[in-house]
């Protein structure tokens, strides 16, 4: 009985249960990714330190307790891969999309429940293969999450971890792509085909619009990465030369490859990689719009403009991959086109920001933890977005490219902003996830510590970029010009410890609230969307999603299913 219960629970096709599986997978992933970042930050400021448990954990990579550069780089690769794929892609779309999307649409289930379960288990397998890539002889791959060939394509000769580890890494990414494609097909079908009665497209909550845009981006970009990954696996294992030119000499070995182009990988990778940034952040934008309206007790300002801006950002986002390649050897003339398109993304992003502020403006704000994270998201989004105006200019990028300025930029805009969206969603939809409420007092403490910690870590990091500090350096000992940057790097490390320690408050809140949290009944936040209506209520929709104009007697909001 027990076994049957757990098995049926595990291989469930219920969208809420699958959402919980994704939630816990990305929670495990984010904890691992965060732990890796702490070890890396420690190593950067104390590269010679002997740590007993390093030696125990990595007998080869840290024999004697001192971390080798190859171990550092493999941790860096694992950190990036975990955070981009298993946290920022899974939590916003797969976890919360699954949890809420069908219910907000009045669909009650995803279009293809079995496909949904399959996506999860493929993704889970992908995670296991990724972990395995670090457990094989030679250690994990050291070519970063971008895996540029030739480094990533010629095998163990290019460095430890570039053998079996790198092969498994590509297999893991291939599996992940397959899972993500299935999820996006499911989301698109659900939005287009499964909406309940009365739920016209323009009555959908902005969350649904953004999940829809995200799924479209996913469907267009993940297949490209999948194909590129297969080609590079062929280069590695099958002797082909898609990404490898003639005349290479690696170590003392002359390569037989000829005719390929390393830049081709960068085109294919960033054709996926740039939309991926929006895959991570668009759901957060939807969540923030929804939460700001709910807790400001006001309609979203400019609903149509918000929908259009999401699609403008998605469309332009497909056309700007070249801004990752300004200094790659690409024709400098194409850079100008990529630059103009990149800077143009600033306009719909600014519309979003203005409309968020206008939504909260003059509102009767209820500063719940979810609302605080939504407001924090807007602040971080502005800060992280502005550094993009530097990087979008090819000339300016030529100095900042591959420095800590870029690290600060994408950690704020892609990492912290998306994470704030995830936190806001977790606090807001916790009643739907676990039937209880997260503790608000702990939540607020967690928010303020995280908000301060995030700025304290990534704000000063821009200055390391001003000093020209290159990223992906295993230590800062060789270069004279990096010595004056070390005190700043030490500050960043300590701020990162602080930021990570703040997450213990959240973990404690999570564990405590799942077991003992206040039970949530009904429409706890006085929201308007359908996920909050009772099990026996009709889900036929009669109005738009953000009716906070006091239309209904005695209340300042009107639910979508109210006639």
């Amino acid at each position, binding site marked *: 009985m027990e076994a049957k219960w757990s098995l049926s629970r595990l291989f469930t096709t219920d969208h809420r249960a699958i959402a919980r599986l994704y939630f816990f997978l990305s929670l495990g992933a984010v904890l691992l990714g965060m732990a890796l970042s702490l070890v890396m930050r420690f190593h950067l400021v104390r590269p010679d330190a002997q740590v007993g448990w390093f030696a125990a954990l990595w007998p080869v990579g840290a024999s004697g307790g001192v971390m080798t550069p190859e171990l550092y780089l493999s941790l860096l690769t694992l950190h990036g891969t975990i955070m981009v794929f298993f946290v920022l892609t899974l939590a916003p779309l797969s976890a919360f999309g699954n949890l809420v999307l069908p219910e907000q649409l009045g669909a009650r289930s995803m279009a293809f429940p079995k496909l949904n379960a399959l996506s999860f288990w493929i993704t889970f397998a992908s995670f296991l293969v990724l972990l395995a890539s670090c457990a094989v002889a030679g250690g994990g791959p050291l070519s970063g999450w971008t895996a540029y060939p030739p480094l990533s394509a010629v095998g163990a000769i*290019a460095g430890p971890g570039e053998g079996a580890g790198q092969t498994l890494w590509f297999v893991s990414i291939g599996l992940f792509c397959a899972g993500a494609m299935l999820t996006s097909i499911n989301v698109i079908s659900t939005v287009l085909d499964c909406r309940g009665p009365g739920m016209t497209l323009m009555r959908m909550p902005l969350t649904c619009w953004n999940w829809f845009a995200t799924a479209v981006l996913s469907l267009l970009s993940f297949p490209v990465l999948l194909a590129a990954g297969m080609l590079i696996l062929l280069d590695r294992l099958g002797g082909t030369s898609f990404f490898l*030119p003639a005349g290479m000499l690696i170590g003392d070995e002359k390569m037989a490859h000829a005719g390929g182009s*390393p830049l081709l990988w960068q085109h294919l990778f960033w054709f996926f990689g740039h939309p991926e940034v929006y895959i991570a952040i668009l759901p957060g934008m939807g969540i923030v719009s929804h939460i700001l309206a709910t807790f400001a007790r006001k309609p979203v300002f400019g609903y149509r403009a918000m929908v259009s801006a999401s699609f403008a950002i998605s469309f332009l986002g497909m056309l700007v991959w070249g801004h990752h390649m300004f200094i790659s*050897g690409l024709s400098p003339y194409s850079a100008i086109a990529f630059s103009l398109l990149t800077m143009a993304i600033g306009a719909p992003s600014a519309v979003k920001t203005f409309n968020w502020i206008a939504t909260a403006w003059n509102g009767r704000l209820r500063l719940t933890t979810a609302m605080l994270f939504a407001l924090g998201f807007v602040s971080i989004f502005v800060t992280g977005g502005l550094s993009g105006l530097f990087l979008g200019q090819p*000339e300016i990028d030529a100095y900042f490219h591959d420095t800590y300025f870029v690290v600060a930029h994408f950690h704020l805009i892609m990492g912290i902003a998306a994470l704030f969206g995830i936190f806001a969603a977790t606090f807001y939809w916790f009643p739907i996830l676990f039937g209880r409420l997260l503790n608000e007092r702990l939540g607020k403490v967690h928010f303020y510590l995280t908000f301060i910690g995030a700025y304290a870590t990534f704000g000063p990091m821009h200055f390391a970029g001003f000093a*020209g500090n290159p990223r992906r350096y295993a230590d800062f000992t060789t270069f004279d010009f990096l010595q004056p940057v070390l005190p700043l790097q030490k500050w960043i490390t300590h701020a990162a410890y602080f930021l990570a320690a703040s997450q213990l408050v959240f973990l404690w809140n999570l564990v405590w609230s799942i077991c003992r949290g206040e039970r949530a009944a009904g429409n706890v936040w006085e929201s308007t969307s359908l996920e909050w209506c009772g099990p026996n209520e009709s889900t036929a929709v009669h109005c738009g999603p953000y009716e906070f104009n006091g239309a209904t007697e005695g209340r300042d909001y009107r639910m979508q299913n109210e006639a």
Partner: protein
Amino acid sequence: MLFGLILLLLTLAGCLLFAFPPVWFPPSITAEALAWDGQFRRTLWICGAIFVCAQLLICWTVLRGRSRRGAGAGSHGHRGLEAGWISVTALLFLSLAVAGSRGWARGSTGLAGKEVIDVYAHQFAWTFRYAGPDGIFGHTATEFINDSGGNPAGLDPADPAARDDITAANLRIPAGRDVLLRLHSRDVIHDFFVRELRTKQDIVPGMEIPLELHVDKPGTYEIACAELCGLGHSQMRSLLIVLPDAEYERWKQERWKQEPRQ
């Protein structure tokens, strides 16, 4: 309330960081680098102004929204307002992009009158090659590369033009002259980065990528690899040594005499 105050303090801290920066850029050494500094300052002022205004607006929204009870019949939007801020930001950002592209993609002016130097990057070192007294770069090929035997550039021993070529581990260039670097990699992607030039360029195997410079002031600067190239990435250091022209020519002469002839 608390949120508004904390955001206010964070914004202030951000401004203070720029007033008293913990580290800053090194001095620039070319005309292009000086132009870079100008464009950076323009971008910084614009972004700084937007940053402060937007954060203060968020603070104000939160502080004000709480203090006024029962305010605000909710507006669903305002087309004029939205059209206004989309046009203003689009215009601002695009003009920034146009200003930023002026210093980019200057067409190559050819080889004439330039001191040409070949740059070879490999895991995890740099080699620089000069043409020698005959002014001709000899033939090179992968099969002749022999790092321990003193031939990291792969000079062809059978080619007379290659025999007088000079190789060195640091990059010496003459001050006040146009220099053309031709960047080569034999293994993985590397990147030629000198902070004082305010630029960097990836070095891609299978490609020869030109990089033109003109430095007037003699001095010594660090060359860093800025593209992840393997476990020795952070050790891949060399020096850019800008010498007065006469001294540079003298160095080449001496170096040529020392060079072991195959």
